[in-house]
């Protein structure tokens, strides 16, 4: 009889679902429909494999991280499970490089002290101290980059970004969390078109996702729209232009939102430009990262333009 382990305790489910079993043991798991539809009882297997049926309807990025629905999960083997917010371990990492990529965005390279597993596009918590941390997206790709790469925008009065900019130097050791987030590339459907829209340092996860997709042999169009207020906000431009030269299916469109036409830039809000250029997104995969209002509007607009909800991945800052 398979056992499930949760919070250091092990239970036998018998004929019950994981949800019924945990609830009977007095463990409180949020749930609603009880039939594998509403996704309220989403949990994550940290050890062992859950039956495919317990992942029906989940986004591919969630299934890839072993998320499952407790109410329809009848384990066939021993599993250890957690609720989505648990599992935050701290890891030491050494700063191997820190430099400005433009006037306000710092590129930081980190070497974790232990093996670090992540997907390009996920984010980590970066700790200043016990009580203060910020989330930063990873711009690196596990298969391509030795170090973890972050793009940190120096916020006016920012507790963490200010400290990073003023105090941290190469060679320093910092604490980070494990990677999390479900905004990443899942191999498969290589011919699917991909639209990516980002503002500011929201380029970081997109830069990782694009290189990950290309490294996986993605053949569909990959169209990146990066928005900033003015031309001064762009960075990684040479790298992106080089990717464009090497991969005919990749295009990079920088957009400025301030008034006045500037050669080489599209003028307008980045999601307006992207959706105007690509009015039908039926069958596309869409990645949205950056300013939360932009992400919210673009998510809705992409969906109304035909993208399926399961194909829209968003990471609002």
């Amino acid at each position: 009889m398979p056992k499930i382990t949760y919070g250091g305790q092990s239970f036998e489910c018998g004929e019950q679902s994981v949800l019924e079993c945990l609830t009977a043991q007095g463990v409180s798991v949020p749930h609603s429909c009880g039939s594998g539809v509403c996704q309220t009882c989403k949990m994550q297997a940290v050890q062992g494999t859950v039956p495919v049926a317990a992942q029906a309807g989940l986004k591919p990025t969630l299934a890839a991280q072993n998320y499952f629905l407790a109410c329809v999960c009848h384990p066939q083997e021993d599993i250890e499970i957690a609720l989505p917010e648990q599992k935050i371990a701290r890891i030491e990492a050494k700063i191997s490089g820190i430099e400005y990529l433009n006037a306000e965005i710092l590129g930081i390279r980190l070497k974790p002290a232990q093996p670090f597993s992540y997907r390009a596009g996920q984010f980590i918590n970066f700790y200043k101290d016990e009580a203060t941390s910020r989330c930063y997206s990873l711009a690196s790709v596990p298969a391509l980059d030795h170090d973890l790469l972050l793009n940190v925008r120096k916020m006016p009065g920012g507790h963490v970004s200010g400290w990073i900019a003023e105090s941290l130097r190469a060679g320093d050791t910092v604490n980070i969390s494990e990677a999390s987030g479900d905004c990443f590339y899942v191999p498969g459907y290589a011919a699917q078109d991909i639209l990516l829209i980002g503002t500011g340092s929201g380029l970081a996860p997109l830069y990782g996702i694009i290189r990950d997709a290309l490294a996986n042999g993605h053949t569909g169009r990959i169209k990146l729209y990066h928005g900033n207020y003015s031309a001064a906000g762009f960075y990684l431009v040479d790298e992106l232009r080089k990717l464009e030269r090497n991969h005919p299916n990749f295009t990079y469109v920088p957009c400025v939102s301030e008034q006045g036409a500037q050669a080489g830039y599209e003028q307008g809000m980045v999601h307006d430009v992207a959706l105007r250029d690509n009015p039908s997104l039926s069958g596309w995969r869409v990645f949205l990262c950056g300013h939360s209002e932009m992400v919210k509007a673009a998510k809705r607009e992409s969906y109304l333009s035909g993208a399926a909800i399961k194909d829209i991945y968003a990471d609002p800052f």
Partner: protein
Amino acid sequence: MSLYTDIGGEAAVNAAVDIFYRKVLKDARISHFFAGVDMDQQAAKQKAFLTLAFGGPNKYSGADMRRGHAHLVAKGLNDSHFDAVMENIGATLTELNVPANLIAQAAAIAESTRKDVLGK
């Protein structure tokens, strides 16, 4: 054979949910009720509702329906809005080439939730 099986089961619900919710968000009569809601969570709820309408497995009770819509009733949710949703369900199933007799059965199940949804 049950309606749920005839209509195509979970695959049919998955196909219907994107089309249905897109129609709802584009429908000026009712779209304002969805302003600011999380799209992923809302789509999961729409899926649960369509599963119910298609006679599929669900554990929703009338009380759940009342509780889930009470805040919208307070904002003016009424029969005209419910009618608009019914129209969108019909149009979605028509678009998916579901036979008329099955559409009528699904519509009847959806219709049966009207009193609870509207808190009557």
